[in-house]
C-alpha cells in the first residue's frame, strides 16, 4: 500500500523534473533558466532525502543539506551577475 503511493509520488516528481527541464531548454532569457534551475533543486533535495530514507544511510541527508546550501549560493551569484554586481 505505502509502496504503491510512494511510487506514484516518485512518478509525479519525475514529471516535475521533466517540465522544469523543458523550461530550461526553452526559456527565452537566462533568468528563466535560473528559475528552472531553482525549481529543479527544490525537487531534487526531497529526492535525495527519499533516497536516504529508502537506502537507510543517514549520511545521504548531509548531501541534501549541502546541496541546498550551495544551490542557494549559486542562485544568489546568478542574481548578482544579472544585477551587474560580480
Amino acid at each position, binding site marked *: 500500500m505505502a509502496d504503491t503511493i510512494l511510487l506514484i509520488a*516518485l512518478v509525479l516528481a*519525475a514529471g516535475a*523534473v*521533466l517540465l522544469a*527541464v523543458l523550461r*530550461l*531548454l526553452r*526559456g527565452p*532569457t*537566462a533568468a528563466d*533558466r*535560473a528559475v*528552472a*534551475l531553482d525549481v*529543479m*533543486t527544490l525537487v*531534487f533535495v526531497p*529526492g*535525495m532525502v527519499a*533516497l536516504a530514507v529508502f*537506502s537507510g*544511510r543517514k*549520511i*545521504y541527508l*548531509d*548531501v541534501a543539506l*549541502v*546541496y541546498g546550501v*550551495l*544551490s542557494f*549560493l*549559486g542562485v544568489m*551569484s*546568478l542574481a*548578482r*551577475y544579472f544585477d551587474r554586481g*560580480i
Partner: protein
Amino acid sequence: MIWLDALVCLLMIVVAVTATAVKNLVSAVIMVGVVSLLVSYLFLRMGAPDVAMTEAAIGAALTTVIFLIALRRTGEDR
C-alpha cells in the same frame, strides 16, 4: 527504479548537448550547473555520498561563481 536513473541520464545528455549549442553564455553556465545537479544525484544513487557532496560543492557553487566572474571580466556577455 532503473527507469528513473535512465531518465536522469537522458536528461543529462540533452542538457549537456544544449549547453554547447546555446548562444547565451550565462544560459550555458546554468545548464552546466543543472548537469552537475543530475550527476550529483547519480553519484548518490550509486552509493557514493562523499563524491556527490564534492560534485555539489564544485559543480553548483564554485564553477558557477568562477564562470560568472570570468564572463564579467572578459565582457563576453555583451
